[in-house]
């Protein structure tokens, strides 16, 4: 079985692209084919967990493509499969044309490829294909506003990837290979440039300020894909690098804490539901980065919950919290949103709790304190959705019928995710702490946040400023890496 894994992995990685382009020939089968692709990913992820033997294989010689199949990536692949499945079920009855499903499959495939590869060039190709597919999905409505948001995304991601390519060339110059391991022996500027690209692509800290507008402007199923899985491609690559080169671990931890606090602080005062969710993504990615070893499990629960939240937000009657607070929403919508929001806050009984416990188990003090502050903020931010007025008398909008199957997938997945770390329930400390964090967050919500909405300056989100920020973060990361790896890249 294990001997067949390399061939299986290659076939599985190429499969979505074959299917995606054959939709052009068979447009009437678009939805069924998308379903087949998502199931193939589900099966592959299941296979990874069942075999449970981390494998890295090289195709062709030492210059060939390197692929890694392990449970860390398995979690991400599972997230991708489930979120895509939920998005597909949500769109099943909509009037989306086959073009949409083609792009969805290509996005799904390139995300899978990015989760699989372990060398910088394959990752580059996967990330670029992914940006093209995301652009086409974001601009699906063809409105001028969506085209602008898509263009802005391409500008940022393409510039980031150009820096990344320079970093990759430096790695090749130093080690004669493109593998992730090469980072250990490369000069600090290579690491700085590669991380600059990945941080921008992954939406981390100030390099990720492009994310709120992009994710909130897209249609909700697309936002669910973007926030649920797409940004995690770059995050997984960084996590893999940090696991191979432990000297880089502090960079990730620092970036993780910074983005966790920034995202949550900006999200708390946000008035727009989808922007708030996008900012919460910026913050939650910090938890994924915080402990490389547990990144997979956290990414799974976050992806499922955030996918569900975006789909629910798309069905709400308004995007403005002020309007939503005045008129009750349908009970079913509220219930779906609340379960997902409780998971993000880390409430016991739902998947988010066990993975949060997993992350906070092995943190140094400074990181633990900062992440707990961010967790309280997250609970406060989610409280904005949980405490929306609701009533059983309100008839749910027609979209809720489409919502049901995808909610079964996402929220059911969250419940099953409890099995990732069942030991969390046996420790009273963890339970009390989780409830305390959620309670603290709700208190914060009722005392302050409910009354405050700030209009944050939008200047930082302008294209020129986003590009300029990139040069600043390049310098910051370079100095940090120089400090961490003082001996010209040789790990102490």
């Amino acid at each position: 079985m294990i001997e067949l894994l390399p061939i299986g992995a290659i076939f599985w990685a190429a499969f979505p692209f074959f299917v995606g382009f054959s939709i052009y020939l068979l447009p009437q089968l678009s939805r069924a084919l998308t379903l087949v692709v998502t199931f193939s990913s589900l099966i592959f992820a299941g296979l990874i967990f069942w075999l449970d033997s981390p494998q890295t294989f090289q195709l062709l010689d030492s210059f060939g493509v390197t692929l890694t199949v392990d449970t860390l990536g398995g979690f991400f692949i599972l997230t991708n499969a489930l979120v895509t499945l939920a998005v597909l079920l949500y769109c099943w009855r909509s009037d989306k044309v086959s073009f949409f499903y083609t792009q969805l499959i290509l996005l799904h495939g390139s995300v899978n490829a990015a989760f699989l590869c372990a060398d910088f060039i394959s990752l580059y190709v996967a990330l670029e294909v992914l940006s093209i597919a995301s652009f086409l999905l974001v601009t699906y409505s063809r409105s001028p506003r969506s085209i602008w948001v898509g263009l802005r995304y391409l500008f940022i991601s393409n510039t980031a990837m150009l820096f990344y390519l320079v970093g990759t060339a430096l790695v090749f110059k130093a080690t004669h290979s493109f593998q992730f391991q090469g980072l250990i022996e490369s000069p600090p500027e290579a690491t700085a440039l590669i991380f600059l690209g990945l941080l921008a692509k992954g939406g981390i800290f100030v390099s990720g300020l492009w994310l709120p507008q992009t994710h909130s402007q897209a249609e909700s199923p697309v936002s669910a894909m973007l926030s649920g899985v797409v940004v995690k491609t770059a995050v997984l690559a960084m996590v893999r690098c940090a696991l191979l080169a432990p000297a880089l671990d502090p960079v990730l931890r620092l970036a993780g804490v910074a983005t966790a606090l920034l995202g949550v602080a900006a999200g708390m005062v946000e008035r727009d539901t989808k922007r708030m969710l996008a900012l919460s993504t910026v913050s939650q990615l910090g938890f994924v980065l915080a402990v490389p070893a547990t990144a997979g499990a956290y990414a799974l629960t976050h992806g499922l919950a955030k996918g569900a939240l975006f789909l629910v937000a798309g069905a709400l009657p308004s995007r403005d919290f002020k309007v939503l607070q005045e008129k009750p929403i349908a009970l079913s919508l509220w219930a779906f949103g609340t379960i997902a929001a409780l998971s993000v806050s880390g409430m016991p009984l739902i998947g988010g709790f066990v993975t949060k416990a997993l992350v906070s188990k092995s943190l140094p003090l400074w990181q633990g304190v900062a992440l707990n502050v961010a967790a309280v903020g997250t609970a406060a931010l989610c409280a904005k959705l949980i405490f929306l007025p609701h009533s059983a008398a309100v008839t749910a909008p027609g979209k809720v019928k489409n919502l049901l199957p995808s909610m079964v997938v996402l929220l059911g997945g969250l419940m099953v995710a409890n099995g990732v770390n069942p030991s969390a329930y046996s420790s009273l400390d963890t339970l009390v702490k989780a409830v305390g964090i959620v309670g603290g967050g709700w208190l914060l919500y009722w005392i302050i946040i409910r009354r405050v909405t700030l209009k944050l300056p939008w200047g930082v989100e302008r294209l020129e400023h986003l590009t300029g920020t990139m040069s600043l973060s390049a310098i910051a990361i370079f100095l940090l890496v120089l400090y961490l790896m003082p001996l010209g890249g040789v790990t102490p």
Partner: protein
Amino acid sequence: MIMPVLEALVFATVICGFFGLIIKKSLVMKIIAMDVMSTGVIAYYVLVAGRIGLFAPIADSPDAILENGSYADPVPQAVILTAIVIGFSLQALMLVGVMKLARDNPTLETDAIERSYRP
């Protein structure tokens, strides 16, 4: 001696492109600046390939022995070919987007576009 100079010029190209991306107001100019930047990156790969030698790494007869140190490294060139194609297609995509935007915003000034589509 020539190598460090070339390297400096290549990086200057990258930086020029990056500055153009920030300074230029028009969207089309920004795309051109991005192209300048990617030209710099491509040139850098070619430079890395030419570090150990400059001949094309093609053996003209089956038993020709490629002398170590005189032939260019084929790997970075092969790799950058992919990046060129991707960069080209991204640029085409962006230009199509800009054409669509130009209908409502004929000047294509980033400031004006951003102000009219602000959240």
